């Protein structure tokens, strides 16, 4: 850590102590000399932040907040805060007669940002909300040093929350690892066993280094405590990482599943080789984009919920395209798989080109709603992003929807009847032609939902479907044609296997290995993981 930062933190500690004694006396305006540093380069800006931290008070906080948001600027000799069109003097907080356009806003770089966040953390460790205190403790713990010990002790004495207490205790332990008293070091080495941060492991491992004949840590008890703690951290980190990899695999699997489910119905159940399946995904993604555009234009306040509103739109848009495809082309090609393969491939080109002409060849931008941004931290270094969690949930929802439709509705029963024995179903009065159209529409609609999910994590462009068609067929063939359950297992299996391979061999090799695996698998077991059994097996 830079000495400048240590100095800053020391002063902040002193300031916090002072603040606690004098319960906030009424303050006059800031001394303009404090702000002089903002006229200079990055180093003098960092010193100005230090100085403001020492001065403290609401005025200083206001200036620091403005700097963080990029609203602090200079004009001539003055330091000003810009608030929309209004300009206020930074020192006094009073309105200044300077046009907002004339203010030269101050650039913040990462070094200044680090200083700012340290200042913030020190200020909010004692009196923030729980979340703020936790974040502040984590922030300070990363650069824990001797000067921060008194602040940690004070915070620990006042702290009731267990999570914050844990972070503070470990932060103190990190500092105490270098203490002169062996008892303190032992206690610290033991306390750090609770950590799940690999950086802490490195600190402990440094104790076990041998310098010639002398150990870095002279005390045997401390060394063995450190060894035990390292093992504990290793276990925790390894578990967290495995959970992280499995989660990535599940996430990739759920995406593969959403992309392939529609195909599992049209190809798996109805036996149509639909090369335009990827383009049905694309239609769903573009429908989502249209909904987003409409929300931006007419319901900006509800923009966060455009994804939910897009669910029926994406479904019906893709289903409509599916119905048109079935009525106009596929209907005439039933029972001729080769021709329908070529015809659907042609259709896919038509759809791609149509989208290029209607919307344009460039990718379109889809923003994650705010409730799908960010993630939850499982352990140090393992974050589960919200958009992926939501998509896994969405995959389960779509799966349940299909299962209910196929098993519990009259239409589902008809579809199953027609696919099992078309002439017999016709004989007992099932309108087979209409059932074909409807089943294809459902498959296409599900693909539309897949497109909606893809739009939240991947690029949306006219040719996006091309990237998923191979994966979708892979899932359906691997799972076993005609089996929804097979598709589920195949998608999840492929997802998790790819992620483990990727962690081990990199993205490029992983892709190759997965393809090789599937080729070998299909050679050995052409019917897929789940084969149809009984008297329909050969039909």
């Amino acid at each position: 850590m830079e000495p400048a930062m240590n100095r800053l933190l020391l002063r902040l500690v002193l300031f916090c102590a002072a603040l606690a004694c004098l319960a906030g006396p009424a303050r006059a305006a800031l001394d303009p000399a404090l702000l002089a540093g903002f006229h200079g380069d990055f180093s003098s800006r960092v010193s100005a932040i230090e100085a403001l931290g020492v001065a403290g008070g609401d005025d200083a906080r206001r200036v620091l907040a403005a700097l963080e948001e990029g609203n602090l600027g200079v004009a001539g000799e003055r330091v000003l805060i810009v608030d929309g069109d209004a300009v206020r003097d930074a020192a006094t907080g009073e309105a200044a007669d300077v046009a907002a356009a004339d203010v030269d806003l101050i650039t913040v770089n990462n070094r200044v940002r680090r200083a700012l966040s340290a200042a913030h953390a020190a200020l909010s460790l004692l009196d923030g909300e729980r979340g703020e205190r936790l974040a502040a403790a984590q922030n300070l713990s990363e650069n824990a040093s001797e000067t921060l010990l008194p602040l940690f002790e004070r915070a620990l004495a006042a702290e009731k929350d267990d999570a914050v207490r844990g972070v503070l205790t470990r932060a103190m332990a990190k500092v105490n690892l270098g203490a002169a008293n062996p008892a303190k070091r032992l206690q610290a080495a033991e306390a750090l066993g609770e950590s799940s941060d690999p950086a802490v492991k490195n600190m402990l491992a440094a104790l076990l280094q041998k310098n010639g004949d002398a150990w870095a840590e002279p005390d045997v008890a401390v060394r063995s405590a450190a060894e035990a703690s390292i093992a504990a951290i290793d276990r925790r980190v390894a578990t967290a990482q495995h959970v992280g990899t499995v989660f990535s695999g599940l996430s990739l699997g759920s995406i593969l599943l959403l992309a392939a489910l529609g195909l599992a119905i049209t190809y798996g159940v109805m036996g149509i080789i639909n090369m335009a399946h990827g383009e049905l995904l694309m239609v769903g993604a573009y429908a989502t984009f249209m909904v987003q555009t409409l929300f931006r234009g007419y319901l900006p306040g509800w923009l966060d919920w455009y994804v939910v509103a897009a669910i029926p739109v994406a479904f019906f848009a893709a289903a409509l395209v599916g119905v048109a495809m079935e009525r106009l082309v596929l209907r005439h090609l039933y029972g001729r798989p080769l021709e329908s393969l070529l015809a659907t491939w042609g259709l896919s080109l038509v759809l791609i080109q149509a989208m290029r002409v209607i919307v344009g060849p460039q990718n379109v931008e889809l923003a994650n709603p705010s409730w799908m941004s960010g993630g939850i931290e499982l352990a140090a270094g393992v974050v589960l992003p919200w958009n992926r969690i939501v998509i896994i949930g969405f995959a389960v929802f779509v799966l349940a929807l299909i299962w209910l439709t196929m098993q519990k509705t009259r239409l589902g029963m008809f579809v199953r009847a027609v696919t099992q024995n078309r002439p017999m179903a016709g004989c007992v009065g099932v309108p087979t032609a209409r059932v074909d159209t409807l089943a294809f529409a459902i498959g296409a609609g599900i693909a539309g939902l897949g497109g909606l999910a893809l739009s939240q994590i991947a690029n949306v462009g006219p040719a996006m479907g091309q990237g998923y068609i191979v994966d979708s067929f892979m899932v359906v063939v691997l799972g076993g044609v005609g089996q929804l359950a097979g598709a589920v297992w195949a998608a999840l299996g492929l997802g998790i296997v790819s992620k483990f391979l990727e962690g081990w061999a990199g993205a490029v090799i992983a892709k190759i290995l997965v393809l090789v695996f599937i080729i070998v698998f299909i050679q050995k077991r052409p019917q897929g993981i789940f084969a149809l059994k009984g008297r329909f097996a050969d039909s």
Partner: protein
Amino acid sequence: MQTRRNFIKALALSASIAAIGAPLGAHAADTIKVGILHSLSGTMAISETALKNVALMTIEEINASGGVMGKKLEPVVVDPASNWPLFAEKARQLISQDKVAAVFGCWTSVSRKSVNPVFKELNGLLFYPVQYEGEELEKNVFYTGAAPNQQAIPAVEYLMSAEGGGAKRFVLLGTDYVYPRTTNKILRAFLKSKGVADADIMEDYTPFGHSDYQTIIANIKKFASEGKKTAVVSTINGDSNVPFYKELGNAGLKATDVPVVAFSVGEEELRGVDTKPLVGHLAAWNYFMTVKNPQNDAFIKKYKDWAKKNGVPNADTVVTNDPMEATYVGIHMWKQAVEKAKSTDTDKVIAALGGQTFKAPSGFTLTMDKTNHHLHKPVYIGEVRADGQFDVVWKTKEPIRAQPWSPFIAGNEGKQGL
């Protein structure tokens, strides 16, 4: 939607004009044809479409001020669709069929490598506007983007400095093709020369169009937590950048902890991303839209006006970036060289190009090197702002001469000129 439709109409119109170029060329003697070879579809369209726009704008500007040697320029736009062999085919068509005097185009190095033999064989003239890996010097190509010593090396030096965070460990992350592989080879050698051990360098590649960055981000986090201050050097190209930065933001990897410096991400690429979680991540270029000087103000205004007039989608939010500036400079330098040579003959223009100067929007007067076909360029390092623009946090005082043959690759000592 209306503007989109207009854009399509404009595209269709320009395409049809290009198609009936020959009949219009009844006054063939009065026009000079120039080719524009940029992907308008596929994975690179995100970056290259804007270059086509700025080239058309520059040609319009030159025509409005009297053309070249009294003749109007006539652009011929083709779409190689992010398909590398198609680049070569389209280049051949431009030179031998349309008889263009010069071609402005390509973005990825793999597309440049695929057209190089065509330009050599037919003795054409290519202006390549994007930063690249060096290790190449073609008689028929002028490079108006940066060589590694004008972008990659200064950026890594900045990351290692106290101001840039004092990084000691590096993740070299790229798309799997010639530019990232070569750049990372140079960077690895450079880092070694600065005393960075092999164990402190992690190199990883993804295919073009890769969209699942979960594992890579998790690996970066793991690598960064294993000790010293870590920084990521990204040579990811094309639309993969959108999912990469989305994942980066969602995974909570902040610039204050692990800064990412990108060599192929500019203002245009960030338009498709929510930049609030990315504040503080870096990019190294020779130009940023936020650079303040009269040439740049005029350049930005010209482009915005052109975009509005021509119905470019989202014309009110268009941005300018480094390769756009390089395209603009390249076309102007070609014009100056043609006027000096008093001919559009390839060899005469090549001879006249060395030593040309142009007052560029980057705020410096750029010079075309007399021998090595590269521009002398200033280097800027910028940090992403919440609005998707960059704050310049470091820059060189003077333009730097390019070293297309990096001194960090063995065997390059003797090859600095043609």
